[in-house]
């Protein structure tokens, strides 16, 4: 059996031990990771198809009787692999705070109101060209307790599967020119040259006049190794 593995991209990602982000202290392995060559289990992945996505799951502004409060935005982009190939028919899940920076989660108790018309949860599938689009509300910043007067920059959580176990990625999309970037240890844990890849681009062409602003966020999952493995045993 001939299998191509995926290129390794460790230099893209934040280190698991990132002391400025205090929750990593007891939650990073202290033993070195063991290299796992890619075999069949790593180059295959689940097919999580249309049955998981309802008709309004991509539009977070239309999931209740009324409209949510806040700035209506379109978030769109493409999911590609590291060779520039689109990843079609792939599940994307997002979740986020409301316009005031509050999550609809029992653990989020900070004094900013919930919005009865906003859950902050969306799903969609990429199309044949790897494109996706969500309609939502621009999330607010919110305080957390990592350090004195810590605030998370506005962000939307993204979960992607790609085509294989190896391509699985959970990340966060940020907004251009956020003044809170400088003090955020989660954003800054990413190597400096890679941070901008997490920041969406304001996209005037995709705004809808008198309706919504737009931001573009392309996501790149790992590409294939040039050389196929010799066999299924890697």
């Amino acid at each position, binding site marked *: 059996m001939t299998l191509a593995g995926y*290129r*390794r991209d460790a230099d*893209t*990602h*934040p280190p698991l031990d*990132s002391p400025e*982000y205090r*929750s*990593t*202290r*007891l*939650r*990073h*392995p*202290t*033993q070195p*990771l*063991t*290299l*796992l060559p*890619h*075999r*069949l*289990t*790593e180059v*295959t*992945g*689940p097919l999580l198809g249309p049955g998981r996505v309802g008709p309004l799951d991509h539009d977070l502004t239309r999931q209740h009787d009324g409209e949510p409060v806040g700035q209506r935005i379109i978030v769109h982009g493409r999911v*590609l*692999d*590291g*060779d*520039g190939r689109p990843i079609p028919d792939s599940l994307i*899940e997002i*979740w986020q705070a409301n316009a005031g920076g509050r*999550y609809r*989660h029992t*653990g*989020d108790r900070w004094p900013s109101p919930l919005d009865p018309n906003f*859950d902050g949860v969306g799903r969609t599938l990429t199309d044949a060209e790897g494109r996706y689009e969500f309609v939502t509300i621009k999330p607010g910043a919110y305080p957390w307790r990592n350090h004195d007067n810590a605030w998370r920059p506005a962000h939307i*959580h993204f*979960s992607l599967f790609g085509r294989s*176990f*190896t391509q*699985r*990625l*959970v*990340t*966060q999309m940020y907004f251009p020119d956020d003044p809170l970037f400088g003090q955020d240890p*989660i954003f800054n844990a*990413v*190597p400096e040259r890679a*941070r901008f*890849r997490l920041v969406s681009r304001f996209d005037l062409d995709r705004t809808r006049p008198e309706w919504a602003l737009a931001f573009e966020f392309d996501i*790149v*999952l*790992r*590409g294939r190794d040039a050389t196929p493995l010799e066999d*299924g*045993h890697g």
Partner: protein
Amino acid sequence: MAELPTTPSQTVGPYLHIGLSWDDGPYVVPEGTPGAVWLCGRVLDGAGEVVTDALVESWQADPDGRFDQLGWRGFGRSDTRDGGYAIHTVVPGAVAGQAPHLDVSVFARGLLHRLVTRIYFPEHERSEDPVLRSVPPERRDTLVATRTGDGYAFDVRIQGERETVFFDV
């Protein structure tokens, strides 16, 4: 073709449950499937505390060692809000010269990137498995589930004594 730089990982954060929990998440196979077992365990931090804001995902072959059979989901997902994860599945078959195993991802607040581990089963011959053989012998046990009344138990120890072996995938 030009190589594109990949998108960096970020933590799922403490509110992962609203975005990633599915009602049917734990069910790799439906209830009532012959041979189905519950695979359960805790995620523990470096202080030995139970992590309740983690998400455990599994990917595995079917009992014949195949991934591509029509209707085979192969995927399980469980959060740990009740103190542990629980996945309802069947024991996979051997895959391409490897002992039967699940590939597992662990996400949590405080994890800036997923952790990847494997779960093997106590009843199988594992001495020729190439992945286990790449692990120091004294740590291999951290990758093997133990038998319980209705299936198997497998704790993920992120840090500290008997730290689980994690893989650079």
